[in-house]
C-alpha cells in the first residue's frame, strides 16, 4: 500500500505520451506528415529560389494546426466514445487536471514535431532561425491558441467523424483564405480582411517574424491575439467539457460558451482592422491592407514578404492616406533634389535586417572569403568595371544594375559569396559615382523599387554569377535593402560590422 500523495495529472501526462507514441496513425500525422510536407515543399520549389526560411512560419503553423485542431480532439473524442473518460469520472481526479495533462502532452508532441521540422529544414539548407528564443515563445502562443480551439472542437463534436468535419471546416478556410498556406499577398482584399478574423494569420506572422524578421517586437499584436484566442478556447472548452458521449452537446445548453469563443475571434478581427488603420502600425506591419511598403504607387508595389518589417525602415510617402500630413516627411520629385535631411527623416536604418542575418548579409571588416571562392570573387572584381549594365549612361539605372549584382546572390542564397559581393559593388559605386550623387541615387533606388529596367539581372553570367530567380519582386526587394545599407554607410548611419 502506497500512501504518498498521488500526482494524477503527471501520470496521466505520461500515459498520454506513451499512448501517442504507440499509435502509428498519430505518429504519421504528428511527425511524418510535416516531414513529407517539408520535402514536398523542397521538391516543388527545386527550380526556384524561394528560400525555405521565408515559408517556415507557414509550415510550422500547418503542423500545429493539424496536431492541435485535428489530432488532439480526435484522441479526446475517441476516448470519450470508448467510455474512458466516463471511467475517469468515477475517480477523484478533476476535469482541469485531465484537460491540462492532455493539452500539455499535445504541446510537447507539437514542439518536438516543430523542432524536427526546423532541424530537417536546416539540413536541406535553411539557416538557423534568427530569433530562436522568441520563436519558442511565439510557437508556444500559437500552440496555446490552436489547442484552445482543439478543446472547443472536442467539446462540440459528438463523435470522431464530427471532429474531422469540424476540424476541416476550420482547417481548410484557414489554409486557403486565412493566410496560412496561401500568402496574404496573393489573396484578394476581402480575403485579407477576412483572414484577420482567423488565428492562422497571426500564427504565421508571429512565427515568421522570429524566423527571418525582427522577432516578437514587430508582432506584439499577433501574439496578443493568439493569447486571447487561446484563453477563450481553453476556458470555453473546459466549461463545455463532456465526460460522457451520452451527454449530447446540443442538449446541454452550454452553447453560450461557444458564443464567447466566436465573440473573441470577432473582437480580435475588428481590433486588427482598427490597428491596420493606425499609421504607426501600418508602417510596421507586413500585410496588404496595412501597406508598409515604401513605394509610391500601390499598383507597382513589391509584394510584401516576411521581410517587410525591414522595408518599413522607410516611412510612407506624403500622399499616402495612412500618413497624417503634419508628420509626413518631405519627398523630392527628382533624385537630384534629395537631401540628407530628407533621407534621415524618412529612413529608420535600425529597422533594416542585420548584416549577419539571412536576408541581405554583408561581411564585417576582417572577414575574408574562403579559399574555395577566391577565384570567383576575383572574377567579379576584375569583370565588374567592364560589365556593360554597370556602365550605362543613366546613373540611376547604372546604380540599380550594380545593385542587382549584390541582390541576386543573396536571393540565390550563395552563402559563400553573398556577403562579399555587396562590398565589391560598394567599392565599384564609390569609384564610379561622386559620393553626394551616390547618396541621392541609392536613396532614390530604394524608394522606387519597382521602377527602372531589370534586364541587367539576366546578364550576371558574365560575372560568373548564377541565373536570377523568376520572382523579380524578391530581387527588387533585396536591391532596396542593399541600397539602404550602403546608403547608411555613406552617411554614417550604419557602422560596418
Amino acid at each position: 500500500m502506497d500512501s504518498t500523495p498521488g500526482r494524477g495529472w503527471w501520470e496521466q501526462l505520461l500515459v498520454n505520451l506513451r499512448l501517442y507514441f504507440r499509435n502509428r496513425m498519430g505518429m504519421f500525422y504528428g511527425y511524418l506528415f510535416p516531414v513529407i510536407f517539408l520535402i514536398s515543399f523542397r521538391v516543388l520549389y527545386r527550380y526556384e529560389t524561394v528560400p525555405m526560411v521565408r515559408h517556415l512560419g507557414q509550415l510550422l503553423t500547418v503542423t500545429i494546426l493539424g496536431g492541435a485542431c485535428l489530432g488532439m480532439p480526435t484522441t479526446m473524442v475517441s476516448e470519450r466514445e470508448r467510455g474512458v473518460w466516463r471511467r475517469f469520472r468515477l475517480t477523484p481526479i478533476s476535469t482541469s487536471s485531465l484537460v491540462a495533462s492532455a493539452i500539455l502532452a499535445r504541446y510537447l508532441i507539437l514542439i518536438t514535431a516543430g523542432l524536427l521540422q526546423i532541424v530537417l529544414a536546416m539540413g536541406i539548407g535553411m539557416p538557423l532561425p534568427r530569433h530562436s528564443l522568441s520563436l519558442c515563445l511565439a510557437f508556444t502562443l500559437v500552440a496555446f491558441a490552436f489547442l484552445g480551439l482543439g478543446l472547443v472542437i472536442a467539446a462540440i463534436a459528438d463523435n470522431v467523424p464530427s471532429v474531422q468535419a469540424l476540424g476541416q471546416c476550420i482547417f481548410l478556410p484557414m489554409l486557403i483564405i486565412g493566410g496560412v498556406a496561401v500568402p496574404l499577398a496573393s489573396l484578394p482584399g476581402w480575403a485579407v480582411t477576412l483572414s484577420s478574423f482567423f488565428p492562422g494569420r497571426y500564427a504565421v506572422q508571429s512565427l515568421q517574424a522570429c524566423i527571418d524578421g525582427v522577432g516578437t517586437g514587430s508582432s506584439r499584436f499577433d501574439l496578443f491575439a493568439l493569447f486571447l484566442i487561446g484563453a477563450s478556447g481553453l476556458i470555453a472548452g473546459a466549461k463545455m467539457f463532456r465526460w460522457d458521449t451520452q451527454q449530447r452537446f446540443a442538449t446541454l445548453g452550454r452553447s453560450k460558451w461557444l458564443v464567447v469563443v466566436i465573440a473573441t475571434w470577432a473582437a480580435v478581427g475588428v481590433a486588427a482592422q482598427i490597428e491596420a488603420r493606425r499609421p504607426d502600425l501600418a508602417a510596421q506591419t507586413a500585410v496588404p491592407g496595412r501597406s508598409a511598403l515604401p513605394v509610391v504607387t500601390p499598383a507597382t508595389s513589391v509584394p510584401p514578404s516576411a521581410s517587410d518589417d525591414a522595408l518599413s525602415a522607410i516611412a510612407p510617402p506624403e500622399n499616402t492616406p495612412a500618413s497624417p500630413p503634419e508628420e509626413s516627411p518631405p519627398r523630392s520629385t527628382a533624385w537630384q533634389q534629395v537631401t540628407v535631411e530628407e533621407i534621415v527623416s524618412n529612413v529608420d536604418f535600425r529597422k533594416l535586417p542585420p548584416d549577419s542575418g539571412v536576408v541581405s548579409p554583408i561581411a564585417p571588416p576582417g572577414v575574408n572569403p574562403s579559399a574555395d571562392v577566391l577565384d570567383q570573387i576575383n572574377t567579379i572584381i576584375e569583370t565588374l568595371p567592364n560589365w556593360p549594365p554597370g556602365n550605362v549612361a543613366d546613373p540611376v539605372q547604372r546604380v540599380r544594375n550594380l545593385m542587382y549584382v549584390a541582390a541576386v546572390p543573396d536571393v540565390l542564397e550563395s552563402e559563400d559569396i553573398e556577403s562579399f559581393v555587396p562590398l565589391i559593388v560598394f567599392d565599384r559605386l564609390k569609384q564610379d559615382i561622386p559620393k553626394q550623387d551616390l547618396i541621392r541615387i541609392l536613396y532614390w533606388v530604394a524608394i522606387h523599387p519597382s521602377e527602372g529596367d531589370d534586364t541587367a539581372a539576366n546578364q550576371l553570367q558574365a560575372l560568373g554569377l548564377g541565373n536570377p530567380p523568376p520572382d523579380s519582386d524578391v530581387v527588387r526587394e533585396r536591391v532596396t535593402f542593399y541600397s539602404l545599407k550602403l546608403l547608411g554607410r555613406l552617411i554614417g548611419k550604419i557602422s560596418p560590422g
Partner: protein
Amino acid sequence: MSAKVVVRDLRKHYGDVQAVCGVSFEVQQGEIFGLLGPNGGGKTTLVECIVGLREPDEGSIELFGMETRREGGDAKQRIGAVLQTTSLQEKITPREALRAFGSFYRERFTPEEVLDRFSLADKGDAPFDTLSGGQRQRLALALAFVNNPELILLDEPTAGLDPQFRREFHDEILQMKKDGRTVLLTTHYVSEAEQLCDRIAILDHGRIVAMGEPSLLIARSMAAPSVFLSTVQPVDFELLRQLPGIQSLERERSGFRFSTDHTARTIGELMNYLDAQHIEISELHIQKATLEDVLIELIGDSQYG
C-alpha cells in the same frame, strides 16, 4: 453497524421517462446489498447517481455520512466502482492503467499487488485490446480495488460473461465482504442476488417494490409451492386433477407438475391414491417458492419469466 450509503427520495427523469421515482434505502457497513430488477428498472441510473455520473433531479445521497453534492470528491477517495462495461484506451496495459488510476487517490495499492490479487500478473503488460472479456472485467474490478475502497459499487458486473468467470467473480465479491468491505451490487440475475446478497431491493419502473433479506422475501411470498411427480405406471390425468388441493396441473416431461396451497394435505391424499392404485413413484419433488417466483409475483412474468 453504520450506514455507508443512505439514499433518500431520489428522483431522476430523462425527458418524459421517470427512471427513478422516489427511491430510499440504506446500505450498512460490511453487507452486500443487491438492486435486483428487470432491464430498464432504474438500477443503472440509481448507481450512476450514487457514483456521481449523473445528477439526481431530487433527493439526497450520503456516502460515509457525506452528502455527495457537497463532498463528492472526498467520498470518491473511499469508493471503487465497476460499470457494466469498462473500456480503456486500446494500447494501454493493465499495469499502466493501475498506476495511472492509483495516482488519482491518496492511498493506493501498487499495480503489482493488484495484478497478483486479481490473477492478472501474466497480462500486466498486454495491451487492453488484446484482453478477453473476462480479463477486461477482472481489470475493471482491479481498478475499482486499487484505492483499497471501503465501499464497492458493481453495476451488472457479470452481464454477458461465461459461467466460469461469473463464479470467479462471485468469489471475489464474497472475499471483499470477508475483508470487511461494503458492496452495492446491481444485477438482473436472480441466482446471483440470491447467492451473494445479504439484502436486496427489487426495483421496477424506478420504484422499490420489495426490500429485505432474500429468505424473508421468499417466506413472505404468496406463491404456492410447486410439486413434480413421475410414476412407474401410468396415472389417470383426470383422476389426479380431482384430488383435493391440486392446482394448475400440467404434464411435464415424463410426469406432472402442479402447485398446492396445502402441501402436507395434498401430498397425503396423493400418496393414498397412488397406494390404492398400486402405482410406484419414480420421482417426487416439492419446491418452495424461489426468489424468481417472488419477482414474477411482484413484477409479472412478462418481464421476468
